[in-house]
């Protein structure tokens, strides 16, 4: 009996973890969102160093751009209702002004798409300009929908 129970524990744990994947807790949704956002700012920061000719090998640009393209497709699924925990920077305006938020996200997605096109066949100056548009689009969302950082 005891043995059967102990054998079942991993199965139960697996079932629970599958449930969690289907509908994350608000806490986990917020953590996942923060990780994706950090990944985006990480790639964006690396790209900006590269296109300004400061550091990094331009041959690696395409990989960072592709990462941004992939990450942007996840944005729509990141904002689970109720995941604006007290210590998270997502503001209630995300859900209260859902249309304005959707516009800001769409604007960002379009900027990343445009950037990825320029990045594949544009000169460095054009790439720099398109990359700056991506940065502005990040800020376009954060201005109204993210809690200001405590400096």
């Amino acid at each position, binding site marked *: 009996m005891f043995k059967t129970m102990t054998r079942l524990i991993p199965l139960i744990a697996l079932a629970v973890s599958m449930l969690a994947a289907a509908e994350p807790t608000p806490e986990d949704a917020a953590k996942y969102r923060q990780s994706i956002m950090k990944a*985006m*700012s*990480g*790639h*964006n*920061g*690396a*790209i*900006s*160093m590269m296109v*300004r000719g*400061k550091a990094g090998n331009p041959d690696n640009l395409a990989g960072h751009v592709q990462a941004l393209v992939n990450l942007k497709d996840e944005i729509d699924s990141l904002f689970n209702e109720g995941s604006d925990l007290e210590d998270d920077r997502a503001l209630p305006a995300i859900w209260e002004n859902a249309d304005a938020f959707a516009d800001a996200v769409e604007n960002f997605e379009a900027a990343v798409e445009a950037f990825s096109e320029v990045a594949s066949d544009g000169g460095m100056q054009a790439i720099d300009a398109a990359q*700056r548009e991506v*940065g*502005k689009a*990040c*800020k376009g969302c*954060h*201005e109204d929908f*993210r*809690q*200001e*950082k*405590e*400096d």
Partner: protein
Amino acid sequence: MRFPMLGTATAAVLVAAFASAEEAEVSRGEYLVHAGGCIVCHTDEGKQAIPLAGGRSLETPFGTFYSPNITPDPTTGIGEWTDEDFLSAFWEGVNPDGDHYYPAFPFTSYTGISREDLLAMKAYLFRLEPVANPTPEHDLALYISTRLAAGAWKLLNFESGRFIPSDDRSAAWNRGAYLVRHLGHCGECHTPRGTLGAIRNGRELAGNQDMPDGESAPNISPHRIDGIGKWSVDDIEYFLDIGIRPDGDSTDSVMSAIVDSNTSKLTKEDRLAIATYLKSVPAQPGE
């Protein structure tokens, strides 16, 4: 017969030259109004607000200030102001009736702006569509509710004077100093204030935790840990253009609005000049 025609032609050329000089002044004024950060404070919040028609509230420990309408409407704006009225407001902190401004209007920084820059700004503002928009009276604590209190404050904390370039510094540094200290008035937010809201000049750009509306402004002196000492001149230029920090994250809130309406509208040379100056001030540790 030839002479009158020549006279007409000359007059036409003169009028055209005058008109184009005036246009050049107006567009220079527009640039300076952006660089002066006028739009953020003199425009109410909300997408429908008319730029520069005033009404934005500023909550401070001394009460709530409302920014005035600076469109050329004769009754609710500045349409009746003379050049001298305009200069006195910026240089002396005095309104056309002779009353003292409260330092919510940053004349403590603006006093350094040159006459020709101020008159260009006025020329641009007077080209705007006049908007009749009466703005609320300031709602202040009793002990400063008379403008005499503002006068007493000025006696203690204000000295009128234009910016004087430093001969032993580069042109970029001097331009940056003018933009940061005077026109752009960065220190009004980024330099901490002491008793009665006086700017602590010994702590230039060390950050301010007690801003109006519960905001805070970070340390932007070149301190490597507490300030932006790790940012290069190019990093600062990039930030002022698009609002993205060197780590790829974006700014938000008030600075985001300032990037949009002020620093992103400047030439790259001016942003680099600002960065050059910011790198040159003493590094200030946090307190």
